[in-house]
């Protein structure tokens, strides 16, 4: 028997007897004979633990991880600091081997974690209500767009090209099959121009999505852009970096109706792109339109504070095809990690992280330009932790040179933004001055 299968040969026999079945095979006699799979699956024999861990080590040797490549790449996936508390606490098996908290009496752990997550997310965004998370930033953008469309009963969404290209490409797929329309607004000098946005608006428009800091790292003029959305009675959707919200104005204060984004930077491993932590928060008036799970506070029979999944009538398992979304899971473990992150960093820590990102990005920007290899892609230094530079040297040459020297450099802006020789650098609090200096002197002598 296999170590993950409990019953012994003797158990099998005893159980078959109780069932009254002559053989294991007979348990599958309800499958029509011509459908029975009688061959052997073309898989290898099972690996032992030793072999399996060796196999994974061998695979990992074929990779170069960001432990080997000092990471200056972001573009939606970030090498932020992960406090040691997270692994130890999120690894508690009562959390990670539990199902969705449908039995609240034995799920208060998960439920309270989500309630606290919702509370902290609302603090950061200045919104009133948050759901229990979405798959990731891009799918949160889709859900927000659909939510806007539902609220406004219109099918068109205007999107700044400052929105993460992954998010726009996912939206395009969904929109195509839903017969929704997406209008993209070009950037000017790396930012969304409110006038250009206004020109793209029309009475049929349900919502506007603006990312800030945008994909190119620039902080957008969200007050002005929000005003354009308001003028046209559109839902204003802000796609934000939660880390940046420790120092940047809250979406609540600049009039966002829905706030979404990618929460990976909140203590989640970079993990080659997933699983991540999409978030979605909104104002009270739209709470019943939120997709996905929400936890609410209530009381038990003794009047003791207790938490439950609430507003389930919106969800697919109750409402079926009338549900606000087909989403059925949330990113429970990622919520947990994000919550432990916020609890560990706290009010001051998150500010310090944000400020370090900003300071180090500013420093790196100047230093990289000083190498003589780059010039600014846009005017001004109004960026948060990422910025775009342009080089005359072909992108691939710089990229490979840096990899050979132990760095993962900027992200190419050629494909998504047509900026040939464009590099989007990211500098988080993880990068030490020594690493930055080494990167720059490496490029200087290239």
């Amino acid at each position, binding site marked *: 028997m296999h170590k*993950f299968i*409990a019953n012994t040969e003797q158990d099998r026999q005893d*159980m078959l007897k109780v069932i009254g079945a002559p053989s294991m095979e007979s348990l599958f*006699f309800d499958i029509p004979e011509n*459908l029975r799979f009688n061959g052997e*699956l*073309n898989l290898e024999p*099972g690996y032992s633990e030793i072999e399996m*861990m060796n196999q994974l080590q061998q695979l*990992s040797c*074929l*990779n170069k991880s960001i432990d080997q490549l000092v990471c200056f*790449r972001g573009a939606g*996936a970030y090498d932020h600091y992960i406090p040691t*508390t997270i*692994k*130890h606490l999120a690894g*508690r*098996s009562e959390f990670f081997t*539990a199902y969705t908290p449908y039995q*609240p009496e*034995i*799920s208060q752990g998960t439920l309270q974690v989500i309630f606290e997550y919702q509370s*902290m997310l609302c603090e*950061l965004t200045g919104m009133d209500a948050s759901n229990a998370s979405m*798959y*990731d930033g891009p*799918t949160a953008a889709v859900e927000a767009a659909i939510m806007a469309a539902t609220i406004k009963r219109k099918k068109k969404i205007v999107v700044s090209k400052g929105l*993460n290209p992954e*998010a726009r490409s*996912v939206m395009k797929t969904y929109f*195509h*099959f*839903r017969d929704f329309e997406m209008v993209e607004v070009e950037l000017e000098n790396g930012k969304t121009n409110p006038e250009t946005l206004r020109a793209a608006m029309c009475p049929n428009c349900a919502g506007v999505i603006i990312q800030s800091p945008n994909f190119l790292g620039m902080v957008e003029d969200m007050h002005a852009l929000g005003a354009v959305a308001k003028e046209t009675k559109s839902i204003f959707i802000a796609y934000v970096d939660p880390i940046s*919200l*420790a120092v940047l104005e809250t979406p609540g204060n*600049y009039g966002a109706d829905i706030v979404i984004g*990618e929460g990976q930077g909140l203590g989640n491993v*970079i*993990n*080659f792109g997933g699983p991540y932590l999409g978030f979605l928060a909104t104002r009270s008036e739209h709470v019943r339109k939120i997709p996905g799970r929400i936890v609410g*506070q209530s009381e*038990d029979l003794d009047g003791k504070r207790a938490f439950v999944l*609430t507003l389930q009538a919106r969800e*697919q*398992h109750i409402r079926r*095809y*009338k549900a606000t*979304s087909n*989403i059925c*899971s949330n990113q*429970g473990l990622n919520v*947990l990690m994000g919550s432990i992150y916020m609890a560990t960093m*706290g009010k*001051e*820590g998150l500010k310090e992280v944000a*400020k370090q990102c*900003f*300071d180090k990005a500013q420093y790196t920007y100047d230093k990289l330009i000083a190498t003589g290899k780059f010039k600014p892609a846009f005017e001004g230094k*109004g960026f948060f932790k990422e910025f775009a530079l342009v080089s005359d040297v072909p992108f691939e040459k710089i990229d490979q040179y840096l990899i050979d020297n132990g760095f993962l450099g900027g992200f190419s802006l050629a494909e998504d933004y047509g900026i040939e020789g464009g590099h989007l650098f990211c500098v988080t609090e993880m990068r030490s001055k020594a690493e930055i200096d080494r990167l720059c002197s490496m490029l200087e002598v290239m």
Partner: protein
Amino acid sequence: VYEKLLFEVSKEGRKAYSLPATGVPSVELSSAIAPELLRKEDAQLPELCEVDVVRHYTGLSNKNYGVDTGFYPLGSCTMKYNPKINEDAASVPGMSRLHPYQPDSTLQGTLRMMHELSDMLAEIAGMDSVTLQPAAGAHGELLGLFLIKAYHQHNNDFKRTKIIVPDSAHGTNPATAAVAGFDIVEIASEADGSVNVEALKAALSDEVAGFMLTNPSTLGLFEKSIKEIAELVHEAGGLLYYDGANMNAIMGKTRPGDMGFDVMHYNLHKTFSTPHGGGGPGAGPVGVKKFLEPFLPKPVVSLKDGKYFMDYDRPLSIGKIKGFYGNYGILLRAYTYIKTMGREGIKEVSETAVLNANYMMHRLKKDFDLPMDRLCKHEFVLAGVKENGMVVSTLDVAKRLLDYGYHPPTIYFPLIVHEAIMVEPTETESKETLDEFCDAMIKIAHEAIESPELLKEAPHNTPVKRINEAKAARDLILTYKDSLKG
């Protein structure tokens, strides 16, 4: 029992973090960013020291019940044991500390893993090609329906706007069809949960894009007419979608691809042992037959001249449905699971899952109503306690099970069974565990008659008692701030 909220432990001036000195000059934010775009008031995140954080989450974990705590026979959720080696696999630094935009040359190990996993999943289900991109089962369903739509559109067949769904289906099926922009045609099932072939025939037309089905059905019974169903759907020009929720019953014994399904999703967090994480993350890869392959989302991990690469050159692809490439951390776990189970082990999984379900069904049918008394697959559905005259509901039984230290089965699903109790033991549970659980169930059935109030007032031994769900929906206290207002 630990009773506090983070915010109630918080105190100004405490810290649980440590960061290095920056080393670089400090720059005024307002020197680069307009002051009106800067935050005026701090976000009121809690302030704790490390020991507070640790005790808080340790205390909360102790109010949770996981598979590692005990038996979790939650029907249709396949709460099998999550092997510890999966977690170790997912935390090998060289496999997890990877940026999604690294060049392929630095990712050969990871791309090979993904390629291999796709192949293994295809083999197990008898499909031709598998994408790993969907983040969850419902997400996989959505992709599946997108693919069906793309296929019809590619054939310039734009009138197929309907998806047929049985009334016994999971709620996600109709919800997904709606999100994918289809009209839903729900057909009534037979009393035993199987497809009413006549109803299907009646529903089929040249407006039907596809039919969504799970097999074994949500009642845990194998759909005998599946071949006929497939032929009917295909003859009508529709495609057949397989909901992989119940795949734990059939691995190595029969394959959706062989049954005639054209497209399907897998639930890696069910069949392939990745932990449910208190609600996620899961992963819902989608398998297709050859003719649907060109439509799969971008990128596809491909192999050429011994090098793996992310293939974006897919002109017919529907595009992306998720950022990056899927829930990679979950994929690593499932890869490890399939590799460690191997050829023989995978088959043994389904054999044992079915054995366990049939055994429990036989042990319980004297004291609980069993509407369909015949060979089941990996799960079975009871219809409440026998002869109790409705004093005691299925909900009461479930709550009473909490007192005995068990997670209850799924209740009130599928909708077509009255007072349904849906039991799925999985293969990882021993006969002793099944017996002890059955003993508790039978004891509860007796209690239902002898002292029903014990059940009505259950649970008695949990960190909280029954919770007022109506109050939660009425008061809508969704944040700590809300709770202070009350």
